Structures are given as C-alpha cells and as structure tokens.
C-alpha cells in the first residue's frame, strides 16, 4: 500500500506547503493573546467585583490599576515552586501542563472574523468539546497528586460536576447542530446572518449558559475551589508559575466558553457597520462580563442542589428542547 496517499499525509503537506506562514502567525497570535487576555480578565474581574461591592478595586499600578495583573504575573514568575514532600512528583508536575494545552488547542477553530480563523475544521465544535473534556483529567491529577485533603475533595467535586453538566451542554448544542446540519464554526455563524439563534433557541441558550458556567467552575457553581471551605480546592498546594498556569487556564476556558456562546447563539462576527472582529470581541467580552456579574451576585449552591439541578432539571429540559427542535424542523 502506498503510504503517502493517506489523507492525513496529504493534509499535513498541504498545510506545510500553502498555509505554513498563516499557521505560524496564527499560533504566535494565540500564544501572545492567551496570557494577555487572562491578565486583562483578572483585572476586569477585580474591577467588576470592586464596583459591585461599592469599592474601587485595584487603583495603584497604572491608570485605574490596569497594569496590576502584569505586576502580579511578574511576582508569580519569580516565586519559588514548592512541591509537597508526599506528593506524587511526576503527576504534580504534569497537571498544570495538561490543563493549559487543551485551552490553547481550542483557539484553533474559533472564528474571530470571516478571515481570522487559524484552521477551519469539519469537526470544529466537537474539537472544542473533546479537548475541553481533558481539563477534568488534569484537575483530578492535580488534586490527587497534591496528597492534600482539600485538593482531593476539590478534584472529586470537579469530576462529579463536570460529568453532570457536560450532558446538558452537549444536548443544547445539538439543537443548534441539527438546525444548521454542520459542525463547522463558520457555517454555524453564516446561518445566523439575518436572525441570531438565540431568537429560535432561547431555552437552549439558557441551558448552554448555565452549563458552561458550571463547566468552567465559576460561581455559583465553584464548589471545586470554594474558598470558604476548601482553601482553594485542587490547586491549594500549587505555588508560583504552576499556580499561574491554572489561573491562565481558568480564564482562557472562560474566553472559549464565551466565544462558543457568541458563535452558537449571538451570530458570531455578524453585525452592522463595524468589521467582524470588533463585533466578535465585543460579544465575547459582554458574555464574560455577564459571567463575572453572576459570580459576584449569586451565593454558592450546595453540592446536592447542584447535582439535583443538573440531573432532574437541566437534562430533561435539554432533551425536551432537542426533541421539539427535531419535530419542528421535520414538520417545516
């Protein structure tokens, strides 16, 4: 058999031949964007939290404290990385690396504008889902390898929560997929040119929003790192740059969740007057603002409430929504 005729080889060489420069530029942009975006989001989070609680938030470094997180990042980088004596050394070292890779891979298929997408894939949405499911694995690694009660409880909660909320998340996305007949991010965006999908699928949008909040372990679903009871959950034992990687991953996952929300329900880069990139970024940051707003407004749920809500409310409603979508599409 001629091994060079494999589709995979053709793809790699096509990639190297024509799109190599585009790919290198795209990857560079992602690698620069991920830390900067996280730094910005941490600042936004602290500012929004401050204003909600009627205080100014960070004000010292730069105008309105905008450079605060950069200084914090420098501090984190120069800190000592401590490994607990009884920790599983290899897994303790591996966990922060495993958590950041899927967060970066997911950027490959996100369409920032009609032209700005590193790679269009037939399985775009599925790529994001399958790689973000690796995050739980790394949380478990971190929590278990730390050999610390708080970390382990945090990790165990993360696994239970993620298994529960991944199902309604996928089901709510499926109702969009059967409307567009495509997993391609660009085709889903193109299908929303006159009307956004949130108009047709408001229930799916709400389920999607709640599930992604739970999947990214944000309040009111942040039992994974509940500060008041678990110190800081699965990354209790992490210091310095390793801790920073967990932080980076959390905010990057938030960005990816928000951009999926924008692509699926808010028309992606569609919008009047301004270029697509501006619309996309505005929509994504607006969604992130809502996530932060929710965090500083609602109290944390109890764990049994969280699981009951997922299995007894979210999944049945998502299934019903999917069924109604299918029936309506068939009837039309």
């Amino acid at each position, binding site marked *: 058999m001629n091994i060079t005729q494999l589709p995979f080889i053709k793809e790699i*060489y096509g990639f190297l031949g024509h799109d190599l420069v585009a790919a290198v530029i795209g990857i560079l942009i992602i690698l620069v964007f991920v830390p900067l975006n996280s730094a910005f989001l941490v600042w936004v989070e602290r500012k929004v939290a401050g204003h909600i609680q009627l205080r100014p938030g960070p004000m010292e470094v730069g105008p309105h404290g905008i450079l605060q997180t950069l200084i914090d990042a420098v501090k984190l980088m120069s800190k000592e990385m401590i490994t607990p004596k009884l920790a599983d050394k290899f897994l303790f070292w591996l966990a922060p690396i495993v958590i950041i890779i899927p967060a970066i891979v997911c950027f490959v298929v996100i369409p920032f504008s009609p032209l700005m997408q590193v790679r269009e894939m*037939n399985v775009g949405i599925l790529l994001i889902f399958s790689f973000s499911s690796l995050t739980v694995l790394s949380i478990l690694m971190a929590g278990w390898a730390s050999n610390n009660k708080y970390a382990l409880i945090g990790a165990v909660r993360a696994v239970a929560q*993620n*298994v529960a909320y991944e199902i309604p998340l996928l089901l709510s996305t499926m109702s969009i997929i059967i409307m567009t007949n495509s997993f391609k991010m660009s085709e889903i965006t193109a299908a929303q040119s006159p009307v956004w999908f949130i108009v047709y699928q408001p229930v799916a949008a709400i389920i999607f929003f709640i599930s992604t909040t739970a999947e990214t372990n944000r309040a009111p679903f942040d039992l994974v790192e509940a500060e008041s009871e678990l110190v800081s959950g699965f990354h209790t034992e992490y210091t310095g740059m390793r801790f920073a990687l967990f932080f980076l991953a959390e905010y990057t996952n938030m960005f990816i969740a928000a951009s999926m929300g924008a692509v699926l329900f808010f028309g992606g880069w569609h919008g009047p007057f301004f270029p697509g990139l501006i619309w996309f970024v505005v929509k994504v940051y607006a969604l992130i603002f809502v996530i932060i707003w929710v965090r500083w407004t609602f109290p944390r749920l109890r764990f049994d409430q969280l699981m009951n809500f997922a299995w007894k409310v979210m999944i049945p409603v998502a299934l019903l929504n999917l069924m109604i979508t299918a029936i309506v599409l068939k009837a039309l």
Partner: protein
Amino acid sequence: MIAITDIISPVLVARGAFWLMVTITLTGALLAVVPRNIVHNILGLALAMFGITGIYLYLGSQFVAMMQLLIYVGAICMTYIFAIMLSPPLELELPKRRKAKVITAFFVSLVTFIVMAQMILSYKWAPVTSLSRDWSIETIGQQLLTRYFLVFELISLLLAIAIIGAIMIAGLVRRKN
C-alpha cells in the same frame, strides 16, 4: 521551485506519525495494567485512548477521532474515576497480587491476542489508494440507522441493562448497610 516533499520525505513523516501513535497507545496500555497505583492505571488508560485518537486521525477520520476523545477520555475514564472514589484509600495495605490470578489473566490475554492476530492476518488486505466511499458524518449516521440499526439498538439495550444492573447492585449494598 523546491517542493516541501523534497525536504521532508512523506514516507518518513507517515511512518514516524504511525509509530509515535503506536508507542503512545502501547505505553498507555502498559501503564494501565502494570503499576499498583490505581490512579496511575486510569491515567495510563486515558493515554492509550489518546493514542488511539491519533490513529483515527492518521487514518483520516476526524469525526471518529473526536468522538473517541470525547467518549473514551472524557466520559469513560471519568466513570472509572467515579468507581475509584468508592474503592478503599491508598494508605491502607494493598491486597497482595495472587500468582494464580496473574497467570490466568496473562493466559486469557495471550489467547485473545492470538485469536485477534490470526483474524487480522487471515484477511486479505487489498491496497487502497483512495477511500472506497465518502465516509463523512452523514454516511456514518445513515449507516447506523439503516444497515447497522439492529446492532446499534442491541448496544443501547446492553448499556441500559448495565445501568439498571449497576443501580440494583448499589441499591442492594445500601440496603444491607
């Protein structure tokens, strides 16, 4: 103009990618069986599944590859972890490895390996230069709900029975306590 194929030979890349995936899969499989630490076993299994994802990508089926990752790494390994949470903690003394059990397990896997190898070797693999059919997501879905409908339904029945069985066992244990 120098083509990229002159600099890096496609055969080398294909061979390299294939053996990389095979190495990852086999390393993961060994890690899943050999160490005594059960969390290492699960992570080894996840690594093996990841390697298989790579093999699907190598064969050009992106959809099946993503499903492999989503279902096997994202869901099945997670369910195993659930089972581990119910197992005794690691600080306690591990039950000793019984020689008889190890030998039986080795024997069973050897027989399975021989049977499967025999099956694979006895089939006359014809060299294919292009895909025989359009294996897109639509084709897979169509085939699942027409030609392989019975198998598909039987598998779901099997899963349903497994779930009911698990609930029954859990319920019985709880009632005893």
